[in-house]
Structure formats: structure tokens, C-alpha cells
């Protein structure tokens, strides 16, 4: 995936300008920045939901005009269909791409097991906690075996504890099913925890303040939180964001 000089505008207002980023297969790029700096907007452009004012999004060399096949997105507010059960929500991803019902449900059950929702297949979203709803959202996105997974603050709408549980569970899932991932978050910890590389967004309109390589070994787990490198990178990102806030 490649963002080539992206400038995002809403009417007269420029949200972000001149964003250049590359994400190589199998890697995780974290984008971190304060709320309202244009992270979701950027991700929506990558998904082909909106078009940039300037610049091009390319995925596997192809300019994106609509969501390419094999690109899946996990939404901050889950984006589940309230009238569908958990398994129907997960199967939806496959049903719309023409997979027969039986095969789709089978694969859905597989993913429901993967995200730890066995026993809730027939529940409706409103009967589930936020954490369980996002597990469903994750299962749906993974169901299509995406070659690029777009994460829009996937744990941002959850309480602190659930958030932590899901972060580490996501790391575990990612180890078993590695997928190229663009991970957007406003949590610095989360960015360092997931990213092979971190793009720090700041300023108004926002731009990339710095690209930081994270050499913490993958697979990661809770223990990296206490390493010197984790703390050092975290500090650096924090300083970059704070500099952006001041101007």
C-alpha cells in the first residue's frame, strides 16, 4: 500500500496535507495522532470511501477508487448490523462476495471460535458488551482473509480494561494469522505495541511529523510494555505529539 502525496479536504478546510506513506506486505504500520487530526479521514481514503483532494492511494500498484477486493476495515464503533446475529454479521462479509450460505456460516463459526465468542452465535449486537461487539467486527473483517486490514481505533470505544484485554488478544490472533495492517489509533501505547513502524501525525492541517521504526521483536506480548525500548519510543512519540499541539 502506498499513499502518494495525499491531501484531504472537506470543502475549504484542509484536514491533512502531503501525506506520503508506504506499507509493505506482512508489516504493521501504526498511525498515531490526537483526536480530530484526520486519521479516520485518511483511512477512509485508503478504503476508497472518499477521494483525496490531491494525491493517490495505491494498493498493489493499483490506484484506489473503491474498496479493492481483499481490503477489510474494522470500525471504531463496530459497524455491526443490529438486525443480524453475531454469526450472520460475520457471514455477511462472505455472503456479499457470493459465498454460499452454508460455507459462509461454517467459516463464520471458525472465526467466532478464533475471537472467543463461542456460545454467542445467535445473539444480537445489542445483547453484547462493547468488547464482544468489536470481537464480532474483527471476526467479520478477518473472515475474508484480507491482504490488508484497516483498523480505525478498533479499541477506542471500549473501557480501559476491555481495551487492554482485546489488545493482547489481537496480538495473539495476529501472530497466528499475520496480516498486513494499517492500524490507526490515538493511543501511543497501542501504536508502539502493534506497529513495526509508527507514523506520527500532528499539526493543523496535519502532516507526518516523523516515521519511527519499532525494532521490538514480533511476536509481542505484555512483557514488551516494560522494556526500555518501548518506553523510549513512547516518550519520543509523546513529545512529537505535544510539539504539534503547541503550534
Amino acid at each position, binding site marked *: 500500500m502506498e499513499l502518494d502525496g495525499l491531501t484531504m479536504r472537506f470543502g475549504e478546510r484542509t484536514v491533512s496535507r502531503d501525506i506520503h506513506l508506504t506499507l509493505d506486505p506482512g508489516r504493521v504500520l501504526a498511525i498515531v495522532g490526537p483526536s480530530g487530526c484526520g486519521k479516520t479521514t485518511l483511512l*477512509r481514503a485508503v*478504503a476508497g*470511501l472518499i477521494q483525496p483532494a490531491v494525491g493517490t492511494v495505491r494498493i498493489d500498484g493499483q490506484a484506489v477508487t*473503491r*474498496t479493492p*477486493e481483499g*481490503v*477489510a*476495515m474494522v*470500525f471504531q*464503533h463496530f*459497524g455491526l*448490523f*443490529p*438486525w*443480524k446475529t453475531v454469526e450472520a454479521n460475520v457471514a*455477511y*462479509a462472505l*455472503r*456479499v*462476495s457470493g459465498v454460499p450460505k452454508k460455507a459462509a456460516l461454517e467459516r463464520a463459526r471458525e472465526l467466532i471460535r478464533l475471537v472467543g465468542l463461542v456460545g454467542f452465535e445467535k445473539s*444480537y449486537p*445489542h445483547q453484547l458488551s462493547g468488547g464482544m461487539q468489536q470481537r464480532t467486527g474483527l471476526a467479520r473483517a478477518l473472515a*475474508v482473509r484480507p491482504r490488508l486490514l484497516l483498523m480505525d481505533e478498533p479499541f477506542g470505544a471500549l473501557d480501559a480494561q476491555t481495551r487492554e484485554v482485546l489488545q493482547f488478544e489481537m496480538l495473539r490472533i495476529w501472530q497466528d494469522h499475520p496480516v498486513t495492517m494499517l492500524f490507526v489509533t490515538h493511543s501511543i501505547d497501542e501504536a508502539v505495541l502493534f506497529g513495526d513502524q509508527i507514523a506520527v501525525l500532528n499539526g493543523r492541517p496535519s502532516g507526518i511529523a516523523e516515521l519511527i521504526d519499532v525494532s521490538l521483536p514480533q511476536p509481542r506480548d505484555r512483557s514488551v510494555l516494560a522494556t526500555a525500548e518501548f518506553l523510549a519510543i513512547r516518550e519520543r512519540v509523546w513529545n512529537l505529539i505535544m510539539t504539534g499541539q503547541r503550534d
Partner: protein
Amino acid sequence: MHASRPGKRLLAAVVSAVGLLFGLGVWQIVGQRDPVLFATPGRSAEALLVLTEEGSLPSALLASGTLLVIGLILAIVAGVGFGLLLSRAKLLRTSTDWLIFAAQSVPIVALAPIILSAFGFGLPAKSLVVFLTAVFPIVVNTAEGAHRVPTTLLEVARTYRSSEWHLWKDLLLPHTVPYAMTGIRQGIAMAFVGTLAAEFFLNASGVGGLLLAASTNFDSATVLGLTLLVSVLAVGLMSLGRAVERYFARWRAVEE
């Protein structure tokens, strides 16, 4: 939350029963004081029985029922269809919005004589009156619902490259049906009014005709009996609508 629901229902049933008994009691007392204007419940029931025996009530119910069902079905089909169309065609919506609201604020019942004389007083013309009284709440509610499809869900559909067919099946229809059902329930109530109004004019027919005849004869027993009968039928049909609405909205969080 769930445990208290049967309790609440029982309470609601008791309150309605008490209200009904109280109403009947008042009616009986007033009826005994002023037998000409207000026949007693007993005499009203008797009047209905007589009408049933001589066959005019069953045939009137059949005639009115036919009229109501034809008008209502047309209103549902056209109302839901047009409402959905409005949601997907912005130009159509902005250009017809004012028309719908204007039409909705006109009492169609008052126009019934004009419509009937223009279209010939037969079943088609009468059905048209019922249709027109019932269709607007259905269009408005359906369009409102379809218009409020959450944008996030539309984006979800787009990221999964949903076809137009899947968009309707998985998103637009399931989201809109509960709204349409609300409109249909209002439409049912309106259709009752429309049916009676359509039957009142020139060649009076059906239950409306019976009501009109009884009322010109100062036969208060029949008028009150028929009125009550119509109300009971309307309430029954609307509860049916409510049940269907609940069924289609069963995925919603428990609402009170």
C-alpha cells in the same frame, strides 16, 4: 427488566378493563336518564343483534371490509414503494417533499365528496378515498426511516463491495421495515376513517351507510353499537399491526 414485563402487561390489562367497565357504567346511567340521545349498552347490543339476524350487518361488514382492505393494500404497496424510492433518489425527494407534507395536512376526508363525484361513486372511487387517507403516513414514515440509514453501515456495505441487491436486502429493507410498520399502523387508523367517509356520500353503503341511516332515524342504539363495533375492529387491526411491527423490530434493544 424482562421479569417485570408480564407484570406490567397485566397491570395495563387491568387498567383497561377497569376503564372499560367504568365507561359502560357511565353509558348505562346516562342512557337511562336520556334514552333518546343515548341508548343503553344493552339496547345497543340488541340493535346489533337484530341487524345481524336480518343480514344487513354481515353484508355491510363485508362491503366495508373489502373497501378497507383494497384501499389499505394499495396504500401500503404504493406508500412503502414510494417511500423507499424517495430514500434512494435525492432529486425526487427534494422535489416532492413539500408536496407530501402539503398533501398530508389536507384533510382528505373533506375532499371525499369531490373525489367520489369525479371518479363515479363506485368501488374504485371509494377505494381511492381510502387509499388517499391511508397512504401519506405510510410514505412519510417509510421515507423518514430509509433516509436515516446510518452512514457507518452504508460504509460497511461499501467496504465489503456490496451489490445494490445486497444493499437492499442486508441494510435498507431491514432498517426501514420497522419505520414502515409504524406508518402502516397510522395508515390503518386513517383507513377506517376513510372507509366510513367514503361510504357516507350519495350511494351510502357498508357500515358507513348503516350508520348514516340509523343516525338520520335518531336510532341512537344502532349508532352507538356500530361505532363501538368499528372501534373494536380498528383496535384489533392496529394491535395486529403492532405485533407485526414488534416482530420486525425484534433486534432492537428493549424499548418502552
